[in-house]
């Protein structure tokens, strides 16, 4: 599903974010990418949905080399990859339903299809009764679930979550991780970027540890060890 071959990312003039990273993530896997702040985790996540391009190396998503992806093809890639960030990136003047529908609207989806899909994904994330509320009327965990719902509307094959629990308390963190596990159970490949030790240890899934831009360990049923 995801294959990185010797990728490096160097920011101008000589800041090395990633150095010769190679990894292979199978379809349907749940992978945690861990490491301390500034080790290159987020850079790796950004490379996966072409927010950044590698300075060197090859990234393949489903056999598609996206290392030199032309700008016109990026929207096609992004409709196949759901992305969630620590900061919720919700539009404050739109309701929950409108925020989720926005992802479909800007992709040119028909209104009838939007009306069908939005309630479905809101039910999946447990917000079926919050469609008409505004983001500021929701808790942090609920807001993050709206973001997950928005990322799910395209039925992505890959789900990249970059520190999705960074702003949440323990209870909400648990709910979000449970939701990611459910998404994974549906067959979606989940890449979770985090430095939350408890979350990683509780998951008992594959853990890739990055330190100073390099993969220092890749364990099938790993734990957080830094």
């Amino acid at each position, binding site marked *: 599903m995801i294959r990185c071959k010797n990728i490096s990312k160097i920011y101008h003039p000589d800041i090395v974010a990633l150095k010769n990273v190679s990894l292979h993530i199978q379809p349907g896997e749940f992978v945690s990418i861990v490491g301390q702040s500034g080790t290159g985790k987020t850079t790796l996540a950004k490379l996966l949905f072409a927010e950044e391009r590698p300075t060197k190396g090859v990234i393949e998503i489903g056999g598609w080399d996206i290392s030199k992806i032309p700008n016109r093809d990026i*929207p096609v890639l*992004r*409709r196949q990859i759901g992305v969630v960030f620590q900061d919720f990136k919700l539009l404050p003047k739109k309701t929950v339903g409108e925020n989720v529908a926005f992802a479909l609207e*800007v*992709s040119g*989806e028909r209104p009838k299809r939007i009306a069908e899909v939005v309630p479905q994904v809101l039910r999946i994330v447990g917000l079926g009764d919050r469609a008409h509320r505004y983001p500021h009327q929701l808790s942090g965990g609920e807001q993050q679930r709206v973001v997950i719902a928005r990322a799910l*509307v395209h039925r992505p094959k890959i789900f990249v979550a970059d520190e999705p629990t960074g702003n949440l308390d323990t209870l909400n963190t648990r709910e979000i991780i449970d939701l990611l596990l459910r998404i994974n159970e549906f067959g979606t490949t989940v890449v979770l970027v985090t430095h939350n030790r408890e979350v990683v240890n509780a998951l008992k899934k594959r853990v890739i540890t990055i330190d100073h831009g390099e993969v220092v360990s890749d364990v099938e049923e790993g734990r957080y060890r830094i």
Partner: protein
Amino acid sequence: MFIAFYRASKFAVQNFWRNVWLSLMTVSILLLTLLSINVLLVLNVVTDRAITYVEQRVDVSVYFYETVTEDQLTSVVSYLRTLTQVKDVQVVTAQEALARFQTQHEGDEEILQSLNEYGGNPFGSTLVVQAYHVDDFDFIISALDHPDYEEWIREKDFSNYQDIINSIEASTDRVRWFGYGLSGLFLLITALIVFNTVRMGIFIHREEIGIMRLVGASSWFIRSPFLLEAILYSFLATVLAGALLYPILLQVEPKVDAYFGSVTGLTVYFIQNGLWIFGGQFLLLALLNMIATTFAMRRYLKI
């Protein structure tokens, strides 16, 4: 495609309303630009009408000596009528010229007494020659220098009309160049204002744009609301310019007509050619604004 266009238009209108004061300021500047262009157009129409009016009345008066006979006069008329440049030749006989002079100076005893003292008819016959075009008069005048006729002709009078036309052209040319300069300046300001408005729009909507990119909106979809907004500005400015210009023309036209002593038909001209005039101005403005928007997007919208 239609749905995408509809949504892009919706976002464009939303952008307009969310920054309504900035949008109104932009439209005002576009309106000023269009008004200056239209004032220039009005000036062109009035000048053209004024020159046509003068040209229609331009003629060459050819004064003959009293000794010239009617047959000789007829031969000159026949000759002139063979010239393709000549539109019409009117004959004013010596008697008619005398009668006209007496009518013109009816109340002026001194002149009429002088005429009586002269004892006869001091006037010769006159030919009033009209040409199809004012430029043809030089040819007609030189044609009258024909060896057969030049001894009969006392005087040819034309120069005054050319002076009037030259004077109209010279004064309107100055105003016209000033108008071109002003319109050019407004167009430049328009482009800069639109550039800045788009820059502000991109800054205000940076969060929304970021989400659009994240969820897979095409770059066309992200860019198009800004381009449509530029078209919306142009459309509103054009409609307002038309709405303002019409009552202004209704007020100004009688005064212009009175000045030139003829019907300029300014309002009718703008109504008859409105589609071309305002359609053209809308296209020009929309094109300029889209270019300015494209530059602003290239500079500030990173997709």
